[in-house]
């Protein structure tokens, strides 16, 4: 009996995502103990709402990082800003235009993904610099297009993104289902398997007959499309688009991927960990706020915890 329990524990310990969930529970307990049981439920409800957006872009970032060292998408914040700005302006607060808005979010993603990949493939620019330079151009487009933007989102979109059933945000339920689908995409389909294979060894994957370039193109596009949708939903959630609404997702998207147990060297991914890590990050900030920590302390703690997690998790054989 005890041997069985130890076995189960060891098996759980092998799962890299377990740590983010453990950390999340510990932090929640610490916060609730501090408030003496006050607001424990509403903290979870808020965490689910806010973590949703990090999960959306985190999954896209995870696919990109999985394709191997050096692959990372730094254009996510700019894409969120651009998609949010165009969607709000075109929909102009009308429910009837909602399908158009969805198409625009999709289109923005496809365009950004193609542009990023063109820089990487045709100009042979390292992905970090390519997505960075692209993000400058994308952000400028968003600034020029969205100047003085003060348009409310369509009521239907606002309701959908903020609706809660028994304290559970509806959007979070959708994104949990989406995460399960993404997990199937990663582990059970030809595309997902190819992504993992390329991350483990690009040359071996190529020799095995995988169309490496097409898979990388699809991956950068997927990441950009998810960022586009994040822009649409975030604008609905926060009552309108703003140009800096994506900025916090640059670090967050990378951090949740790493804390969630995905290898930065590529070829090893973990989707449950992204949910755990996103909740962990939100609860961490909530805890520090509850404890009355100043902005400086909050920043230092966030940074130190990211560094501590990556140090404990350890690196792999390759870097970058």
């Amino acid at each position: 009996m005890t041997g069985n329990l130890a076995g189960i524990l060891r098996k759980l310990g092998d799962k890299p995502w377990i740590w983010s969930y453990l950390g999340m529970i510990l932090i929640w307990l610490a916060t609730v103990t501090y408030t003496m049981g006050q607001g424990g439920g509403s903290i979870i409800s808020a965490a689910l709402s806010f973590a949703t957006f990090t999960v959306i872009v985190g999954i896209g970032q995870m696919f990109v990082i999985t394709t191997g060292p050096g692959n990372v998408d730094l254009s996510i914040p700019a894409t969120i800003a651009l998609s949010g700005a165009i969607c709000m302006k075109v929909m102009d607060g009308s429910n009837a235009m909602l399908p158009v808005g969805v198409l625009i979010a999709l289109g923005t993603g496809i365009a950004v993904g193609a542009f990023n990949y063109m820089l990487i493939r045709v100009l042979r620019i390292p992905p970090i610099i390519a997505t960075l330079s692209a993000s400058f151009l994308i952000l400028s487009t968003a600034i020029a297009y969205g100047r003085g933007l003060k348009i409310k989102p369509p009521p239907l979109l606002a309701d959908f993104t903020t609706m809660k059933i028994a304290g559970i945000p509806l959007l979070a339920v959708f994104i949990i289902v989406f995460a399960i689908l993404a997990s199937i995409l990663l582990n059970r389909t030809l595309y997902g398997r190819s992504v993992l294979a390329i991350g483990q060894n690009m040359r071996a994957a190529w020799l095995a007959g995988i169309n490496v370039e097409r898979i990388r193109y699809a991956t950068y596009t997927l990441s950009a499309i998810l960022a586009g949708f994040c822009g649409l939903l975030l604008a609905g959630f926060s009552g309108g688009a703003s140009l800096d609404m994506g900025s916090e997702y640059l670090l967050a998207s990378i951090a949740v991927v790493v804390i969630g147990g995905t290898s930065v060297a590529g070829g090893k991914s973990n989707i449950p960990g992204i949910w755990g890590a996103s909740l962990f990050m939100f609860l961490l900030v909530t805890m520090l706020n509850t404890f009355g920590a100043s902005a400086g302390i909050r920043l230092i703690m966030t940074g130190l915890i990211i560094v501590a997690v990556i140090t404990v998790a350890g690196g792999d054989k390759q870097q970058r």
Partner: protein
Amino acid sequence: MKNYLLSPKFMRSALPGVSLAILLMAIFYTQPRAMSYFGLNLMLQYTVPIALATIAQMFILTVNDLDLSIGPFVGLTACIGATLLQTDPVFGVMALLACIAAYAGLGALIHWRNLPSIVVTLGMSFVWLGIAVLILPTPGGTAPAWIKAIMGFKVTFQLFGYNVVPPFPVFAAAIIAIVVHLGLMRSSYGVVLRGAGGNPRAISRAGWSMLKIKMTMFALAGLFGVLAGLSLIGLTSAADAHIADRYTLYSIAGVILGGGEFVGGRVSPAGAVIGAMTLTLAGSFLIFLRISPDWQVGAQGGILILVLALRALINWREAR
């Protein structure tokens, strides 16, 4: 001679200088009044801190790592310079030395645990920013008078009986480039340091300590980061925690514009300084062209892509 001038090798090494020259000519064409001592001084004044930050980034890139925290780090050292160094010089110097030691420690940590530098430095960027906010919660402080005196220094020397007064930024940039060039490109330990980026295994087999090399490179980056922060407050005379946030991007772009590569220890100190100058001038050029401020960021991204495209073209010609 003509063959040599048209060879890919020469064209690649000439590209940074040629880009700078073309940009300068374009500026003088659109705004002839810029062609003066005062004009050049004004346009180039921020070259010194940006060049120092670029050199710091270059040291990190030499050993195949990437520093996403150099901007907030420069901001932190600027805050220390404008507060502690002014009120309590001994304590201030100790704080700055501790910053350099922290960088060396990061290098050791990254080497010891074989960690991805992107994630570690991304986490550290929060720590630097947090400490800076604690030291200087609101913009302010005063730069020590001696730093302002150095940054306002007027160089004059005799050449063919004329008094020559080179703009200080150009003079300082040349000194930085020469010093780093002699240390990294001409000294025997410099060759080892660069070799550590080209083939780490060969270097450690030859008996050099990779740990020591990483710590040296990170400490050097820390030192140049500190110098960048101090020279920056010498120009602005006050500091702010967010004063140098953009420097992370500038420094990476500067190294790449100057002909540096992401991996393999292929870097060029003179190129990096020229790259930093090109970036500084690009800002002024866009203002002279009366490009709307909306597109400033985008145009910088565009210039970066353009130069990288030219380099891709040269490499492609070579490969053919």
